[in-house]
């Protein structure tokens, strides 16, 4: 990468600013809670109970991550092997849907399929098996976590495979490689580069899981640290204990993610030529059958619970729901927050990535610079481990002296959502930005293009699509999020997931199903926006 000193300074400045902003945002919340003069003590922190839920948290997260990645690999491979078949783009879009679903909606959808009265047990009963298969317990948790995370992993792995030069597939065919050799020499090396990152992301999501673990866990033996933090803050109101638990969560999960990151991963030095991917390997009847079976199984696994949400939702009076004033307000609020959160996440990611690029381009990287680069990467990924309830409560305390917290709430929720979306957005934008920089930095430098003209003429046209993808990712996340809103809840701040919950808590199960369906449709629309014109790659 070629940069003028001014450009480098600007990139570094933006990155440091983003880093400081994140640190300040999290740090202020934590510090405020720590300074809270509570009458309870955190003496019970390292009880046997804490130890037990810690073990369970890590154990279920490890299993969930392994299963999600393990099952996502064949799906991503099959989808890459068949770059063109009718409906493929819709399957890829389907993979983006679970992300935007509130956990409870997903859980009820899963129960509709895998539950005691679900179609799977119905089928088993029809063939004479009386004893229903129970999903409650670890099985249910794993089922739910794989439902939410296999699609995520598939999208990220697929993007990595599709970044391979098209010549690789032609060469493998030309050399007569059999599927096993293609896997060993082409596919696995490409996957290996991204699996640590993908696994780390999923591990964090599963370790901090809350509703899914409780609803499907079958009892308090299934409890995550996140539940304990929530309990400490919301039920016992013991901020020091909540913070201590949050630190425990960040430290241990962070350490494990650090370990995952240490796995040897070759750097991606290939530059894709943008040639259309065509596959001539794996065209035997057996591989076709295998691919069809794998893709069909994945589609069933993801689509069936969604179909159950759809079936339930259609029973509600949708027209009446969407024209209700409360719904319209909630939708407007949710969308405003989602747009703001998405834009903040995208801008912050751009700043962080360009700072990392600037550091990587330095002729000699000093230790502080390397440290900065690592903190930029680390912050943007580990921020997912900070429980939203900690951020929300901390900032509530900070802002209270300055007026009605209800007024600040939407901004805060947007910031918290943006923070949670940061790791996902980074994963979409970083490869795209790296690739773009590799391609244009010399040319732009030789033409003397910098600043705004470069951004407008050179960067934006190319980066618009990955930015839209990232934006839709972040928006879907924000739309489905309930956690950040919960504490502020004022009559001014009603979001769609909040409305789903509140409808449900007023017995209106039908309306709640309908609202969940609408929320699903909004996420689908966002996904279509994010994958618009998606033909070649970058569809993470």
């Amino acid at each position: 990468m070629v940069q003028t000193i001014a450009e480098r300074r600007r990139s570094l400045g933006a990155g440091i600013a983003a880093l400081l902003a994140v640190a300040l945002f999290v740090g202020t919340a934590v510090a405020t809670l720590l300074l809270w003069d509570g009458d309870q003590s955190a003496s019970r922190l390292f009880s046997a109970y804490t130890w037990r839920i810690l073990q369970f948290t890590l154990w279920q997260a490890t299993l969930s991550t392994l299963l999600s990645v393990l099952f996502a690999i064949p799906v991503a491979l099959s989808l890459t092997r068949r770059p063109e078949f009718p409906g493929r783009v819709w399957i890829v879009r389907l993979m983006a849907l679970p992300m935007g679903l509130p956990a409870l909606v997903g859980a009820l959808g899963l129960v509709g399929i895998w539950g005691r009265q679900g179609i799977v047990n119905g089928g088993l009963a029809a063939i004479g098996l009386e004893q229903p298969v129970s999903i409650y317990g670890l099985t249910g948790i794993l089922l739910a976590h794989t439902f939410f995370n296999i699609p995520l992993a598939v999208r990220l792995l697929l993007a990595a495979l599709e970044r391979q030069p098209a010549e690789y597939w032609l060469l493998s065919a030309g050399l007569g490689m059999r599927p096993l050799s293609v896997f060993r020499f082409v596919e696995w090396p490409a996957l290996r580069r991204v699996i640590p990152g993908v696994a780390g992301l999923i591990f964090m999501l599963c370790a901090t899981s809350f509703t899914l673990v409780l609803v499907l866990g079958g009892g308090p033996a299934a409890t995550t640290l996140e539940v304990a933090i929530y309990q400490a803050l919301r039920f016992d109101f013991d901020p020091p204990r909540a913070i201590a638990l949050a630190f425990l969560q960040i430290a241990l999960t962070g350490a494990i993610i650090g370990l995952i990151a240490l796995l040897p991963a070759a750097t991606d030095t290939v530059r894709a030529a943008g040639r259309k991917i065509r596959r001539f390997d794996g065209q035997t009847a057996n591989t076709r059958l295998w691919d069809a079976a794998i893709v069909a199984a994945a589609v069933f696994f993801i689509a069936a619970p969604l179909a159950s949400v759809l079936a339930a939702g259609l029973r509600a009076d949708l027209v009446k729901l969407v024209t209700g004033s409360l719904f319209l307000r909630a939708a407007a609020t949710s969308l405003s927050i989602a747009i703001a959160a998405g834009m903040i996440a995208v801008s912050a990611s751009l700043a962080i990535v360009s700072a990392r690029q600037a550091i990587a381009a330095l002729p000699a990287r000093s230790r502080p610079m390397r440290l900065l680069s690592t903190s930029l990467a680390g912050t943007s990924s580990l921020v997912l481990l900070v429980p939203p309830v900690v951020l929300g409560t901390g900032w509530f305390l900070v802002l209270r002296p300055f007026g009605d917290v209800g007024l600040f709430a939407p901004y805060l929720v947007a910031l918290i959502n943006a923070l949670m979306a940061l790791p996902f957005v980074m994963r979409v934008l970083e490869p795209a930005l790296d690739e773009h920089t590799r391609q244009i930095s010399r040319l732009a430098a030789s033409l003397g293009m910098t600043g705004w003209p470069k951004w407008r003429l050179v960067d934006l046209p190319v980066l618009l699509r990955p930015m839209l993808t990232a934006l839709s990712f972040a928006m879907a996340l924000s739309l489905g999020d309930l956690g950040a809103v919960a504490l502020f809840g004022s009559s001014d701040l009603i979001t769609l997931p909040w409305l789903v919950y509140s409808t449900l808590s007023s017995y209106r199960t039908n309306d709640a199903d309908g609202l969940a369906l609408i929320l699903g449709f909004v996420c689908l629309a966002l996904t279509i926006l994010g994958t618009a014109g998606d033909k070649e790659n970058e569809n993470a």
Partner: protein
Amino acid sequence: MRGISTFLLAAAAAAFAPFAAEAQDKTLTVYTYESFISDWGPGPKIKAEFEKTCACTVNFVGVADGVALLTRLKLEGAGTKADIALGLDTSLISEAKATGLFQHAGVDTGMVEVPGGYSDDTFIPYDYGHFAVVYDTETIKNPPKSLKDLVEGDASQKIVIEDPRTSTPGLGLLLWMKSVYGDKAPEAWSKLKDRVLTVTPGWSEAYGLFTKGEVPMVLSYTTSPAYHMVEEKSDRYQAASFSEGHYVQIEVAGILKDARDPDLAKSFLTFLISPQAQDIIPTTNWMMPVAATTNPLPDAFGKLIQPKKTLLLGSDEVAKNRQAWIDEWLTAMSRN
């Protein structure tokens, strides 16, 4: 890159233009839980009726539930904007008092009648409900007739309960078991454990699983069937009457020490237990009224089970032992 970031942030800020402050001269701010003020909850009607009489504006602020309400007050401390906190329940009263944020209500509760002999001069009850096991008559032909039946009955007939660490009904069942079994509660929990399909974080998740047909029994309220009878014209879901009696949840409201207009607050609480407001509660909050109503309750309420005995532990006792009892519960329920 900085140019674009600033631009995006500005756009983000612009997106929030709709959130504007509202200011009124004579305003009563009521902190409550979300479902109280939802479109179908009692909030909008109560607000409209009260505003007719007071020449003021009622401003509801809704948080997740009664527990979140107390947390919110603790967080805000003396500076709270709330004049009234509405939606705490009996098990939280001791803790709420300990905050020192409330003042004597000074409301005449002469006509208020709640089971369990509750009376307090700070926290005024406005509705109540007995916890009950609600079952699906299409699946369960012989519902349990007592808590003992439930604990020792057929483990293949599952129940979904709420988590006492995160929800008030969950805590309610914990106290119910404690009232009935006393020191033997852990043993009872270990027996009940096999019957528990899952433990959800809140009432909504549990009731959702129940109405989806996933589980034939759920811990809810004696009044729950009334909703289905009134709104869905269905007798399918019924509450089981337990011979040991039912634990009661009494919902209360209190006036904050720093209420801007204590008289206005007091008149709101007085209104809350007046027949006019009590008329609204049953079919919007799906709880029992605490005082006389102008109109008779809908027929459905007459068909509800009437607990023979009301169980209620003192609020101080609950506050003192809650943690220990929850630990007990955790140990019993986590055992394999």
